[in-house]
């Protein structure tokens, strides 16, 4: 089931109404049934995967606690089953294609099987979430749960099941286990988040997505058209993914849950490290805690640190999809981080510019980081390596006046749609650190107007092309 459908609205209203009439255990049963209904709505066979992942991880965690001397065996079972499932559905064809290409290059034309099966939506998200549970139990940071129901609800909780944010067991499981109370403040903030999320998805992401799709469908883009398309894609992926997160967080609040924040205005980042503190935070922190730190993090010096960063980002790229362009994207961001660190080592921070120059420097840093991010999005969006090479060779000096006008037109169009995102980000950034004040009637009235304008915009400006959430494919 998808969020931007009438089916979901009816489903969500019905679940919420019934939910608050039930006791705690019955609420969890309802959440499990609702989550499985949500996930299996179009392809019921997906349920067999999430159910088996849940049972295996539950049993592995219980096994670790009961037989501590066999902890490693149970951990291995969990890792093999989760990564095995992910590898089979997500990476089998990638592996087979590459083996075939290597063999063909060596003169052996071997027909390897092709897997004709749909990639189960959200499999990368819930396998990582389930893994966080077993790894935390293995490390002794979490006790294994006795209740299979609670673990199943933790893994399958429908608001964030398909595209995150990936929740840690230590954060979400206690919320599943504890009695929840309906809070009108929480519900109100959830309502605003959901309206903002629907606006971002239907008005911003889907409209600029059409621009990006058109540009990336061209066989002969010019420099200006290509980069206008990359800009549109940058807006699309942020608006789209953060919209999903907002709707997930908003709907969770109506059910008495709090999910972690996944985005913190990433296009205002000043450097690569700052960007990764703001972009897809739940995935970045997963890789930090379960890959980067176990590899040694920054403990053993600069070279091992650089190696660990590159491995972490390579895997992060591969997590996004079974394609070399995602690997390139991951490595590109790894290189950016390493180069930033090298720069800091070679040129230690001075006292910094004078106060009046600080604002201009910040703007330059943000613009520079945004430009670097755009190069990354080109690698991410362009699936063919030959096309990436062609794109990077494009020169503005080869364009005709029409190409320049077309590029400017597309850029302005995408920028126009993205204005609400920039306004929100800049407003939050300039008010960061200020103490939270209770919501007064002035703010409430402003929010009511914003909700009305957002709904009006959805009615008249939603894209005629309804696109799936981008992160569904991962």
């Amino acid at each position, binding site marked *: 089931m998808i969020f931007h*459908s*009438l*089916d979901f609205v009816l489903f969500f209203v019905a679940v919420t109404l019934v939910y608050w009439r039930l006791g705690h255990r019955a609420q969890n049963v309802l959440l499990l049934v609702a989550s499985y209904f949500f996930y299996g709505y*179009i392809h019921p066979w997906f349920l067999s995967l999430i159910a088996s992942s849940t049972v295996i991880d539950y049993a592995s965690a219980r096994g670790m606690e009961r037989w501590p001397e066999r902890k490693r065996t149970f951990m291995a079972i969990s890792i093999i089953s989760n990564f095995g499932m992910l590898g089979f559905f997500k990476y089998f064809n990638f592996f087979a294609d590459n083996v075939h290409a290597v063999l063909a290059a060596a003169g052996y034309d071997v*027909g390897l099987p*092709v897997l*004709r099966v749909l990639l189960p939506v959200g499999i990368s998200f819930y396998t990582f979430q389930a893994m966080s549970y077993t790894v935390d139990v293995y490390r002794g940071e979490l006790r294994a749960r006795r209740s299979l129901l609670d673990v199943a609800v933790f893994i399958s909780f429908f608001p964030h099941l398909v595209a995150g944010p990936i929740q840690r067991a230590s954060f979400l499981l206690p919320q599943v286990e504890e009695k929840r109370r309906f809070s*009108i*403040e929480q*519900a*109100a903030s959830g*309502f*605003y988040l959901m*309206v903002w999320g629907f606006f971002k998805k239907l008005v911003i992401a889907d409209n600029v997505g059409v621009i990006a799709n*058109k540009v990336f*469908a*061209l*066989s*002969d883009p010019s420099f200006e*058209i290509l980069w206008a398309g990359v800009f549109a894609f940058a807006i699309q992926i942020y608006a789209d993914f953060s919209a999903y997160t907002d709707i997930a967080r908003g709907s969770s609040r109506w059910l008495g849950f709090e999910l972690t924040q996944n985005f913190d205005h990433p296009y205002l980042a000043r450097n690569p490290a700052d960007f990764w503190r703001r972009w897809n935070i739940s995935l970045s922190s997963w890789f930090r805690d379960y890959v980067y730190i176990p590899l040694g993090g920054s403990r053993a010096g600069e070279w091992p640190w650089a190696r660990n960063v590159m491995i972490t980002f390579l895997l992060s790229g591969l997590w996004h999809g079974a394609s070399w362009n995602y690997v390139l994207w991951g490595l590109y961001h790894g290189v950016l981080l390493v180069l930033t660190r090298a720069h800091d080592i070679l040129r230690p921070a001075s006292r910094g510019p004078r106060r009046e120059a600080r604002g201009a420097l910040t703007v330059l840093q943000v613009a520079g980081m945004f430009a670097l991010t755009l190069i990354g999005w080109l690698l991410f969006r362009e699936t063919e390596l030959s096309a990436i090479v062609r794109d990077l060779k494009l020169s503005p000096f080869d364009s005709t006046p*029409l190409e320049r*006008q*077309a590029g*400017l*037109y*597309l850029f*302005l*169009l995408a920028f*126009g749609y993205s204005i609400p995102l920039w306004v929100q980000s800049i407003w939050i950034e300039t008010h960061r650190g200020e103490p939270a004040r209770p*919501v007064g*009637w002035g703010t*409430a*009235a402003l*929010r*009511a*107007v*914003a*909700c*009305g*304008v*957002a*709904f*009006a915009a959805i*009615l*008249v*400006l939603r894209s*005629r092309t309804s696109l799936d959430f981008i992160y569904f494919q991962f």
Partner: protein
Amino acid sequence: MRRAALLQLLVAAAGLLLIPLGLRAANRLYAAPDLKPSYLPAIEGPRDRVPFEADRIPALAGMNPTWVVIGDSMAGSRIDPALLTRLTGGQTAPLLYAGSGPAWWYLALKNWVIPSGIRPRAVVVFFRDTNLTNVMFRIDATWSLDTAALDREDDLNAVVARRRGTAFYQVRDRVDRVYQASQARRWLEPAVNEWPARAMFPFRRQRGALLDQLNERFGLAHLRPMDAADMQATEDREADFDAFAADSTLPLMLRDARAAGLPLLLVRVQRRPLNGRPPEQSAALRRYVSRLHAYVESQGGVFMDDTGDPAQTLDLYEDGDHLSRDGRRRYTEMFAVRLRQRFP
């Protein structure tokens, strides 16, 4: 505190529902020009339309073809009309529109072929998988649909209305009527999409030229092969013949062809082969095709399925499901043989 939060939530909900009513007032300020109602009131309000191409009727009557071929690029990339004419000795009239759908194919038969009074040996319609029973497939391609539609298309509209008569559309229509959103969309959407052109050029003529050039720049000729090929996969939920056949243009086409005494040949093209084999078909799609075949023949039509034809190998194809120039020649040759066998 709790009471204040509840009141603020109610105010927000009221704002959400009431402020868009301002669209009704805005529609009075920016009234759309006086437009005729659409021939598909089930899905759209009044709008500008491309005129009906009435001159196709006398052209067909004058040509008096032996074969009429209707379809989209599937037909266009498979049949070479001049070659088919040469091979069969009978004139071939192509009624083709790239990116058209079953509604256009039905209208072409009803509004051009039948009124022309011609008596071809067969009217051939090419389609992919479940196209014939999915009236919504490319129903929004109004630039093509308009060319074949009269001012009123009650049968087509009824089919579309039945097909979209789900709760979703009913709710959407009701919301649309309350807020007059479609009406507002007609003036607001162009204003939003054209503002960059207005910012760039002060004169209307320059803006028009830019937008025309943009349309050309993003046309089929500039697309990557696989994007131009439009390789949409058939979804199993569409492959339910019994659920969708009655709410499609298929019964209308078969009925009208039968009433006019025109043999209707429906050709299901083979999708692009994969790994040297015809593409895999799900069990649902196989069941669907079997039901479609039986239905077409029971209603007096002729059904032909290219899928699995050993002669239609990958080397005939160019991009997606389209055939190459050489593939088109070879396909036309094979098709001429089959036509002569089926319609001696």
